[in-house]
């Protein structure tokens, strides 16, 4: 650990010791700013109503789960554009397989996780063995999945049983189940990245694949595993969404822009697109920024098209808030 000169302020020393990603400051700024605007122009619930805090997190669950997977893939210097349609195929297939019956739930869950593993494996193999650029490879698989879904399903299909909605709407004490699941996924992601050999290898592969290979890391396996993990998080997001919607539709993934949004929140959270750098906590903060914004826009009744404009601006501002100080050039 580096020593800090005594001239540094107490604040600076503490923040450097606990290593808070800078995105958390941006989150706080966004939260206070939206809260003040809400006080001035709407009913001021953001500051006064504790339930709205929970609501902010609940809104972020679907994006948060898949963003953890995306973070992992990005750290490995890869990218996954197929998550949106993976979410769609999960939502549609699970409600189709369940058909509203409790006894079908285990098979459906196993089935969609199987699909997720297959998609992740395919992505990983195409990238590592066929040497296709990850951007193009996952764009291709996403087109393939899109074709398969649209050829098979065109509308709401099947439904989930009542008990399954516990996943989306249930509460354990005062805390919604969905938040617990999100925190669980984030913790698992953190544990894998920070406390396992695989995590260390992933940072190595993302930082410099050749060096990692020469030091004995099986780079291909690491990338494939990261892609499988990412697809599994997409599947989990899909299951969560279908339990909210009660029935799966093929457009849930692309309409939520889960592919580009999950990349955006990961980068806002400090994950480098070039790989080798990032953390799930930063991603969580990025997701919460999106959640705060969407709640604030709702409160203030912003025009949906202007909402899109503001969202675009804030993505760029959030990333700029820390890249502006970096000495490295971006491309």
């Amino acid at each position: 650990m580096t020593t800090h000169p005594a001239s540094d302020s107490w604040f600076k020393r503490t923040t450097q010791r606990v290593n808070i990603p800078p995105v958390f400051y941006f989150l706080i700024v966004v939260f206070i700013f939206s809260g003040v605007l809400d006080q001035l122009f709407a009913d001021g619930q953001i500051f006064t109503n504790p339930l709205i805090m929970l609501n902010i997190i609940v809104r972020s669950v679907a994006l948060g789960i898949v963003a953890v997977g995306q973070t992992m893939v990005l750290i490995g210097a890869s990218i996954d554009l197929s998550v949106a349609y993976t979410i769609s195929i999960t939502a549609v297939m699970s409600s189709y397989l369940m058909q509203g019956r409790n006894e079908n739930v285990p098979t459906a869950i196993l089935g969609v996780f199987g699909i997720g593993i297959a998609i992740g494996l395919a992505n990983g193999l195409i990238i590592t063995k066929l040497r296709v650029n990850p951007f193009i490879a996952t764009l291709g698989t996403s087109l393939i999945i899109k074709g398969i879904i649209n050829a098979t399903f065109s509308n709401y299909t099947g439904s989930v049983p009542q008990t399954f909605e516990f996943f989306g709407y249930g509460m354990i004490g005062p805390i919604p189940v969905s938040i617990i699941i999100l925190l669980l996924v984030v913790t698992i992601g953190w544990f894998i990245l920070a406390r396992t050999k695989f995590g260390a290898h992933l940072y190595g592969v993302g930082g410099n694949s050749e060096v990692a290979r020469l030091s004995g890391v099986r780079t291909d396996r690491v990338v494939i595993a990261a892609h499988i993990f990412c697809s599994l998080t997409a599947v989990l997001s899909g299951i969560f969404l279908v339990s909210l919607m009660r029935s799966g539709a093929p457009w849930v993934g692309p309409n939520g822009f889960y592919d580009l949004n999950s990349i955006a929140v990961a980068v806002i959270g400090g994950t480098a697109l070039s790989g080798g750098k990032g953390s799930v906590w930063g991603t969580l903060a990025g997701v919460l920024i999106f959640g705060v914004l969407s709640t604030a826009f709702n409160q203030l009744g912003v025009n949906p098209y202007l909402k899109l404009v503001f969202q675009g601006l804030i993505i760029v501002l959030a990333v700029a808030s820390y890249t502006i100080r970096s000495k490295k050039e971006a491309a």
Partner: protein
Amino acid sequence: MTASTISAQGSSTKFLRKLWSWIRRIPPVYPMFLLIFITLGFLNPKGYQTMNGIMTYFRPASPLAVLAIGQMFVLAIGGFDLSIGAIVTFCVLASSKFLANDPANALPNILLLIGMGVLIGLINGLVVSFLKVPSFITTLGMMMVVRGAALYYVGGAPKGYLTDNFRMFGRNYIQDVPFFTRIPYSLIILIILTIIAYIIFHRTNYGRQILAVGDNMLAAGLSGVKKKLVRVMTFIICSVFAVLGGIMVAGYGGVNVTIGEGMEMQAIAACVIGGVLLGGGKGNVINVVFGAFTLQAIVNLLNQLGLPKPYTDAVQGLIIIGVVAYSALSTMKKR
């Protein structure tokens, strides 16, 4: 055996070897394009073996090629431009309101759109160079801003129709041309833009600087390239080409809120088929144009085979992966 025959044999194998190395250096996009186009010709002789049919094929292929050329400039410096699909949507929606069904507004409208293109590219370039935001994120944000602004401007649905003189560039043909029968305006525009882009990219210092920046930004900067200026310029070129492509798309596509959706990905795919490396440092305008033609030919081929739209998506995905895997593996062997 006499010495003369040996030397003669030597020269003939040398010639063959030279020929073979020349053949090997042909970018894979050309044999691929020929293969797909000849297959199309067999399946539908009337559509793809007559000049009339080929010119019909070029009409939608040309705007895609224009978008791909612009995208190539940004890919060559190692960036991405995800905003071009939204720019196409913007061109169509903004025109539908600004034209106000009056043909006299066409020219000011086109100038205004090009001005918007310059502005969008300038902002993209400045944010990437000075705020150091990765272009993937910058242009993703710009995509949302442009799309949101376009929809807000027209109030969520297209207003009015596009006047015929504005649609001419993407829709009409020059009739009664000898040999070619008829030539779509879009193809002529594409040829002009290809020549301009070719000169900029392959024949000027600026073009070499783009490749230098894409190959090794630090080295380029140390050898005196004004890398910030180079990057801002490439983003402006990309956005302006996107506007020109958008005007052509508006011509044959008509007014539609989702018209530009996914076009950025198509343009990137066309570039990659044309041999552009994502990550920068490589690019060739003519190859990229044929990359776009190949992509359009693939789409037409799948339609020709009578596959329903969803399967077309799936097969297109498979083919894009296959094509890129083929060129990746073949360049790897050469090294």
